[in-house]
């Protein structure tokens, strides 16, 4: 008798996760409005920079920010588990098409090489071959006698998604070293002779060779002309409250974008 009761509780708990309603699961304490933001790591610094003053202007609203990657951000909003999703994916997953989007601008993806590689410029096809793992030594490209080491981000990253479009099958070298964050890629490339990688550029990045592609130099004063970029965007469900939509819009227009390397795409042909 007693034992059956225990098992009922055990099974109850086991089945709990599936019994959640798919929509609107956020528990709201009385008198408090909660907004949850989740998604791409590249947008978190910007969001966190902006939020404090917005929260000061909206007492009674509590905003939580969670890193989880672009995919998780879009999915969470589509499933109603979060209010605002941050993503820099392209092409967009189907579920994102139904969502309202607030693009923040562009984030340049710079190709960086260790300063000892001895290469400052690559043609686009050379770049692709290097990233595919087909070129094993920098000597082949007129650089120093150093084995090529590709440093990449996991597939959940927006920069990686851009790269996967750039590099045709069989895709990025499976031999690549994977680092979880932008900063880790930069540090690894800076310290590892022979390394090449890509980062979402923001002011202050140094100690590496910024590779020119097809003789187009990566010029931070003319970022708008650089053809490799992601488009960080805030997503909101169409039925979201006006407060949520307002926050998403403010975030996408935040004056701090330049601090994090996000620039406007105005005047540049798509």
């Amino acid at each position: 008798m007693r034992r059956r009761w225990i098992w009922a509780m055990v099974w109850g708990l086991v089945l709990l996760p599936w019994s959640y309603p798919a929509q609107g699961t956020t528990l709201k304490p009385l008198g408090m409005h909660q907004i949850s933001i989740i998604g791409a790591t590249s947008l978190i610094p910007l969001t966190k920079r902006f939020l404090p003053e917005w929260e000061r202007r909206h007492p009674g609203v509590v905003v939580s920010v969670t890193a989880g990657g672009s995919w998780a951000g879009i999915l969470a909003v589509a499933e109603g588990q979060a209010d605002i999703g941050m993503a820099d994916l392209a092409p967009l997953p189907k579920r994102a098409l139904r969502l309202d989007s607030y693009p923040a601008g562009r984030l340049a993806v710079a190709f960086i090489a260790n300063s000892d590689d001895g290469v400052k410029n690559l043609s686009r096809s050379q770049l692709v071959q290097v990233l595919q793992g087909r070129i094993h030594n920098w000597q082949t490209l007129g650089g120093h006698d150093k084995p090529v080491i590709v440093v990449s981000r996991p597939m959940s990253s927006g920069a990686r998604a851009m790269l996967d479009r750039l590099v045709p099958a069989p895709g990025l070298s499976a031999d690549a070293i994977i680092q979880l964050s932008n900063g880790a890629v930069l540090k690894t490339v800076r310290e590892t002779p022979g390394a090449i990688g890509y980062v979402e550029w923001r002011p202050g990045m140094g100690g590496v060779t910024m590779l020119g592609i097809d003789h187009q130099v990566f010029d931070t004063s003319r970022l708008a002309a650089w053809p490799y970029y992601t488009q960080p965007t805030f997503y909101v469900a169409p039925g979201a409250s006006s407060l949520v939509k307002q926050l998403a819009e403010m975030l996408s227009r935040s004056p701090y974008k330049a601090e994090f390397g996000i620039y406007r795409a105005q005047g540049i042909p798509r």
Partner: protein
Amino acid sequence: MKPVTGRPRGDHLLYRVVWLGALLLLMLGFAIAAILVWGTVKFVIDHGLNPSLLGTIYQPTHDQFGLLPFIAGSLVVTMIAIVVALPLALSVAVTVIATLPRQMQMIRQILSGLVAIPSVVFGWWGLSLLVPSIRWISGRPGFSLLAGGLVLAIMILPTLSLLSINALDRVSVRWVEGSLALGATPDQTLGRLILSVSRIPLLEASILAVGRALGETMAVQMVIGGRVLLPHGLLSPGATLTTQLLTDISLLPPGIPGHYVLDFMALLLLVAMYGMVVLVERTRRWSL
């Protein structure tokens, strides 16, 4: 669960609260295991008994789920950790027991403090010191199974040292003096008596340390390189079950096809851990 008769009812309150807490923990454990089993079942439903599971090609978005590289990575990294850490921990323990018995309390406190260091700190240490050193010595990238294993070795060293000290400290002074009184040298007493008597607790300690090493994620991820191919040497970058879970959890959130392979990986880890626990129990039984 019969209440003891002849006692006031209130007497059982604390007992029941404690019992509920234990039950909650038990249920949580069951729930997690059940979720992972359910995920594994879903994986089989979605992908069949995917033959690629036993292969070496891992492209979860393209129905290729070769887990061998990660299983190999986990095994190798854990092995390095224990092979490096155990002799060091034993040295610490023997030194403390034999030559610094009066400082033992202080050393225990220091070691307990070290146990509390978050694993990212060890990862950071590995990234700034270990990876460049390995790169400098070997001329390879430095991110490697070796680096992962060594970071883990340093990380489990405090725990393993504490457990080893406790194991050796349990050796009765009477036995030690009995051995010395028979004309044993200190070395003989250490080798033939102290280590011999403590071998079961030491084995137990090692198994616990292996469990901790097997489950560690962040510190390893920072130095192992995250390469998804079968590693071809200790200096080769690689990945473990845990680091790949960390890398892919945001690529494959629930609802994305291929997500359930993560449940399968987690279940593998859970089963391995459970195996460790069973092993500890077994060794305890041998020692009785």
